[in-house]
């Protein structure tokens, strides 16, 4: 009987232990955990997918079209795309899939971007008067060699919601569904098409989404006079960058123009903080005034210049034998105190004629840059540095720590700064300032310049200070906004640097604070030079 009890007790204990300790699998729970953990990485539709500078224009031509899927936006699908547009703005498209740059094993393809499979034809697409079109590639078969995501054959229905932003560019958002090998949604994907001017497609730098340069909506919310229109959008954040007054050489070309125009632009600081700078444009040769600069300002991080009354002299264009007046809206995403370049939106006052275009402006007395008076140079490529900026060796990703006077003793803020060789002539080096905590971009490094003979100075604008209830500076616990200049005093280019900073808080208070920093590509740096 004792044995019986002992066995029963053993059995009971082992069963209780087993059931208590039993590890119940919960794969769905851990799947959801991963989803939450990575939701900041997940595409929810990128910005700049809906540019508001779309126009109804004949955009016939051959394009290199890239679809950046939400699955893996950094490796787009490529299509050699031909567009023909008739006089009613009805467009026919031919999308020829192209081989990827790398094979599924990651090796570069010798025949990258060569056509593979049959072209996908979509005809009869109406381009709206707002410059927007919609089309669907129904059950499009794409060979595995053209699929950079899995390397396998896919069948997908791809819906393009497109914006024609000039006679040679269109872009937009992508929706739809991959149906083979299995269902994968494409929501959140984007595309962009750039003109093909060289048959060697491997030379093309793909663009997977609409470029920045969307004109910010300058709207103060509902207007008492137009209350029935509702709220047209968020209020653009207007800022007045310092030090932009002076004379500039402005070159521009609307698509409807046969040649580039070049004028002088003069601006001075304005007391109106919504305008920032005002001035005029004038003939470079005669000095005669051609129009007013109503404002030059920064709106949502984009430079805006408005010339509402640009005077077109008689005979300048066959369209206007008696001359006329036009409106120039210039938007620049790249700008420094030396100049700016970007997109132009041209419209004739009183006539339903509009056209996209481009512009570049450089200080008339700049010793660093010139504007090429070339018929072929366009947009930012019209700007040419007089000499190389000499900061190439500073490119790299740095662990970056800084400490301001106000936060002394707090231990520094661990972040990352990436400095890339700029593809842009104005900025020399540009890059991002990234939070190590969550990977979010805190600010963009707007441009770099030489400091002294061998050091670097970085200009950072619109540094977003995230809300942090534990911030030692109480008025920043709700977050804030700042500009910063970072100047190295000691450096091993590409490896480490340290020096001083000037942090100009803009919101919630206007305070400037000195700081020190350290940066190192491999190690967590100190917050100051040794």
């Amino acid at each position, binding site marked *: 009987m004792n044995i019986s009890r002992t066995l029963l007790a053993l059995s009971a204990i082992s069963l209780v*232990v087993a059931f208590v300790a039993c590890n119940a699998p919960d794969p769905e729970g851990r799947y959801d955990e991963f989803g939450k*953990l990575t939701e900041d990485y997940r595409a929810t539709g990128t910005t700049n997918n809906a540019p508001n500078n779309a126009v109804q224009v004949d955009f016939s031509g051959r394009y290199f079209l890239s679809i950046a*899927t939400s699955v893996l936006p950094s490796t787009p699908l490529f299509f050699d795309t031909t567009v023909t547009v008739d006089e009613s703005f009805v467009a026919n498209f031919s999308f020829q899939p192209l081989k990827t740059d790398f094979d599924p094993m990651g090796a570069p393809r010798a025949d990258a971007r060569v056509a593979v499979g049959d072209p996908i034809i979509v005809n009869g697409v109406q381009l709206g008067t707002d410059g927007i079109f919609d089309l669907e590639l129904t059950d499009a078969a794409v060979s595995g060699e053209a699929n950079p995501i899995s390397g396998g054959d896919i069948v997908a229905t791809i819906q393009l919601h497109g914006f024609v932003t000039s006679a040679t560019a269109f872009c937009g958002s992508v929706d739809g569904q991959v149906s083979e*090998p299995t269902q994968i949604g494409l929501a959140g994907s984007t595309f962009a098409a750039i003109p093909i001017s060289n048959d060697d497609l491997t030379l093309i730098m793909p663009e997977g989404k609409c470029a920045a340069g969307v004109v910010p909506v300058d709207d103060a919310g509902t207007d008492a006079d137009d209350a029935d229109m509702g709220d047209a959008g968020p209020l653009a954040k207007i800022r007045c960058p310092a030090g932009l007054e002076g004379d500039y050489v402005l070159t521009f070309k609307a698509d409807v123009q046969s040649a580039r125009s070049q004028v002088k632009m003069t601006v001075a600081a304005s007391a109106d903080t919504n305008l920032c700078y005002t001035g005029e444009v004038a003939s470079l040769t005669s000095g005669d005034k051609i129009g007013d600069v109503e404002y030059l300002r920064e709106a949502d991080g984009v430079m805006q210049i408005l010339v509402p009354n640009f005077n077109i002299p008689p005979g300048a264009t066959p369209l206007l034998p008696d001359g006329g007046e036009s409106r120039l809206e210039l938007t620049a995403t790249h700008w420094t105190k030396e100049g700016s370049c970007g997109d132009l939106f041209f419209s004739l006052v009183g006539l339903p004629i509009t056209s996209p275009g481009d512009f570049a402006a450089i200080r008339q007395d700049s010793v660093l840059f010139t504007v090429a008076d070339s018929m072929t140079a366009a947009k930012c490529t019209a700007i040419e540095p007089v000499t190389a900026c000499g900061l190439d060796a500073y490119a790299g990703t740095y662990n970056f720590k800084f400490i301001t006077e106000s936060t002394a003793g707090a231990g520094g803020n661990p972040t990352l700064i990436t400095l890339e060789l700029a593809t842009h002539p104005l900025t020399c080096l540009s890059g991002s300032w990234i939070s190590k905590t969550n990977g979010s971009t805190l600010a963009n490094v707007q441009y770099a310049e030489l400091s002294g003979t061998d050091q670097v100075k970085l200009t950072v604008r619109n540094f977003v200070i995230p809300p942090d209830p534990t911030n030692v500076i109480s008025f920043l616990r709700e977050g804030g906004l700042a500009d910063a200049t970072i100047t190295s005093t000691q450096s091993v280019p590409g490896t480490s640097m340290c020096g001083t900073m000037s942090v100009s808080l803009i919101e919630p208070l206007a305070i400037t604070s000195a700081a020190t920093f350290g940066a190192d590509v491999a190690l967590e740096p100190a917050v100051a030079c040794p």
Partner: protein
Amino acid sequence: MLGIGIARALPWAAAAAILTTSGVVNASGFSAARFGGERGNPTESNPSTLYYNPAGIGFSTGTNVLIDVTTAFRSATADRPQSAIDNQNPFPDDAAKNAAALDANSGKGTLSNTIVAPMIGVTTDFGLDIPLKVGAAFYAPFGGQAVWDKNDAADPQFPGAVDGSQRWYTIDGTIRTLAITGGAAYYLEPARLSIGLSGNVYLNTIETLRARNSDGSDDLELGGSLKEGRSLISVSSTDFGMGAGVLWEAWRRKAWVGLSYQSRPNFGHMELEGTLQNYLGAAQPNEADVILTSSLPDILRFGIRVRPKFRYELRIFGDYTRWSALEQQCLVDASISDIDAACEVNADGSFKNPGADTGKVIQNLSRKWNDAFGIRLGGSYWFSKDLELQVGGGYDSNAIPDEALDAALMDMDKFTATLGVVYQATEWMGLGVVATNVFYLERDTTDSAGNNDLVLPSRQPGNQAVYNQNIFVLNTNVTLTF
């Protein structure tokens, strides 16, 4: 009365057990049949033989109920070397991040789980003195479950790394086959021979989570975008199989010889249907209806039990399990038209029939397992007619070749050591506790070819690793006889 009560309770117990049962992988492949302990063999007559040898119940008398709970304490590690990683230099311009990425994709994944698997069986002659005996049982012959430990020290810049280096094959989940068996045996008195036949309903479930990229790589990110994803597969099927066997009392009351055969579930390959949920790269999650093909082995069992003296008994039994049936598992979209043709692959993992509906093939999991066998030697000593001591030892071979071994389905050569005690508490109730440790031999596939050497649709991240495992099994059982 007691028998009627138990009979009424059994369906409820079975239903509860279905909800909680998992297999305990401790024989070859992912065979999990150790219920019955030392008495779970093809020479016995208890209800567990409905699976091991349905002829066994022909030697039973009256009504017998066996409730056996297998409790397994499993620990395992999979130590993935950096050499198994696809891209050895994912961030060539950032040495620190490069090193961090390699760390996030290598190292030791660990698991320490407790798993419970009940078995319930009943046999009866209906109280009639007839040579026909029938029975039914519920148990888990295949499968297991795994909850791999989180790596809380993982670098947060690679969010997937928290699930351990083995995550490209398994993170959490269950691969389980439950069986409901009905069987009958006819005892031929003159020949002292019983012939048995059983029919099995198999309830197959696979619900597992793993890290996955659609290109079969183990890349963590690409071009600044998250690349590492997750796939959660939840599929199930109901399949049928049969068993048959003979048990011969070669020496009256002293020696028995048994031989049995269990067919493959569904007599070939099975198709499990369900859903596949994905987080792929930076895309929003998606879900698709899918089919997963799989196969389970047929099994030949044999055994000899000799009890020359009343106090002593010797047993030798074993199995030959034809795991070569599991050549591949093929995951396809549910709308596929000809699954067999589409899933057929060449030796390099590529499609063999490109003209078939291969576009619907999501992933081929190359298995190419081998047949395996197990042999066990055991003995009993009765201190009294009611108290039995059991000892045993055994060996089970490995079914999985080096190139196919992964953390989701581990197998090694293994040895077992068993010690148990059974006490017949009353005329109608016996209690048993049997402890077995399964000693798995380490497997090092670091230098082996692997799934990363295959091409799509078979390509997967490198499965090369050093694998270790140990399972301690406790069988607790109650035998009721009426």
